[in-house]
């Protein structure tokens, strides 16, 4: 799921400086799972901001809320009354949530309280690692279920570069070489012959991300 990290409090204080009353809104989906933007974090951040502003002698009133899913307009709509009563909104949902709120309420400033990082997996408690870059053109069937686009520092599609050493990437011994992992995995599932298969130039542009915001239209679901 989408992983985010809270912005430094000083940065948040900086853009909230002109306001006396705001709505701080989280999201109970992905960002709650990564302990950065859920209900609990709304409370913690609100307390921190109130305290900091009190110290600065410029009190900040903060309404708190947390959307079920901030990327869905019907859930964002539920915020309307609270939004009407404040001067600005601080959202600690991912970048999608921030934009859904901004798109819904055209006459109020919406600020991000987190930096949206990546789509990743929880590898252990408190550790999240990027796994997908949403390239729009999945190659996981060719690579043993391990993504070279998200996990190789050079996004190579035809095997490890010469810098792969004892399972590590050339840029850092702590970073596993994605293609060593792909190699080992293909071997384990009896598909090592895929390593010899040439993967031609990827269609990054035509089918993937470089055409402005990508859109999926499902006619069968439209009203």
């Amino acid at each position, binding site marked *: 799921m989408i992983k985010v990290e809270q912005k430094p409090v000083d940065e948040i204080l900086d853009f909230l400086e002109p306001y006396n009353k705001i709505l701080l809104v989280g999201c109970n989906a992905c960002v709650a799972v990564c302990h950065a933007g859920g209900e609990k974090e709304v409370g913690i951040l609100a307390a921190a901001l109130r305290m900091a502003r009190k110290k600065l002698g410029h009190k900040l009133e903060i309404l708190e809320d947390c959307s079920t899913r901030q990327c869905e307009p019907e859930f964002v709509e539920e915020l309307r009354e609270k939004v009407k009563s404040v001067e600005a909104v601080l959202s600690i949902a991912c970048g999608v949530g921030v934009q859904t709120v901004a798109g819904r309420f055209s006459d109020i400033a919406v600020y991000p309280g987190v930096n949206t990082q990546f789509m990743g997996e929880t590898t252990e408690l408190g550790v999240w690692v990027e796994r997908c870059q949403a390239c729009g053109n999945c190659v996981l069937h060719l690579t043993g279920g391990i993504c070279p686009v998200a996990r190789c*520092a*050079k*996004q*190579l*599609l*035809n*095997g*490890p*570069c*010469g*810098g*792969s*050493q*004892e*399972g590590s990437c*050339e*840029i850092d011994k702590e970073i596993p*070489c994605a293609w*060593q992992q792909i*190699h*080992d995995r293909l071997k384990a599932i009896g598909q090592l012959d895929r*390593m*010899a298969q*040439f*993967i*031609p*130039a*990827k269609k*990054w542009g035509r089918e993937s991300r470089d055409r402005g915001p990508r859109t999926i239209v499902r006619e069968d679901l439209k009203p």
Partner: protein
Amino acid sequence: MKSGSNLEKILEKGLFAVTGELGPPKGNDISVVEKKAEFLRGYVDAVNITDNQTAIVRMSSIAASSLLIQRDLEPVMQMVTRDRNRIAIQSDIFGATALGIRNMLCLTGDHQSFGNQIDSKNVHDLDSIQLIDCVRTMRDEGTILGGEEEVEGQLRIFIGAAANPFGDPFEFRVIRLAKKIHAGVDFIQTQCIYDMNRFKEWMQMVRDQGLHEKVHIMAGVTPLKSAGMARYMNKNVSGITIPGELIDRMAKAPKPAEEGIKICVEQIEELKEMEGIHGVHIMAIEWEHKMGQITEEAGLLPRPTVS
């Protein structure tokens, strides 16, 4: 002839080829290129011009290659996929061949985190094997990548690539070579060899698959200057391993620099006898003035003149 380059002619004639390497200046000072070029003149068949190696910003490989041609030396233009998308790559290949560049080396390139622009965004629109496929398509099919559009003019270029027998996973290294051959590579220059046993093992796998008959393999060597350099390279340079006994030999030598050249010459002598090795690529990094001595002592002179 695919390119008519001197390097291609020598390799096609079955002669043992010698290439050197020249790193362009970190600026536009032509005299740096001139000075290094004169150290190499007469000792090599062609000179690799590196493309922002280790991600350090330098004069472009195309420009420095062109300067070499003006001085009657043959370049092997290196090109990395790190810094260009397929539009820039193909455009640069048009330009390079128009300037008379007849050899190129297709590389992925060191990661930008090694260089002096660590905040840059790498491109890798293509990888090195896709780059080989791209150049071969342009040259042999006469179209640009992806199909129909014809190239105006005719591309004459000898396509090279690197191979690193010292990278992991070891068993994949020959498969990767086979992929490069399948994509259309004409010649290979290997990573610097220090671990001769592992190199021999790799070459055995290459010969077992008959790959040495499908591509010209040039073995890469770099003379060591000191035990410190050896230790540093072993630890820090990606894709290079230096066996302990070699480091010890350098450490014990009264004159390490001369010992380094001696080791290099011994390696070349051994490589000359190895089945499937068609030449050596001598990377005397910032030691270009030793190229005369190395090639002389390794019995590589005079370089042949071919027509």
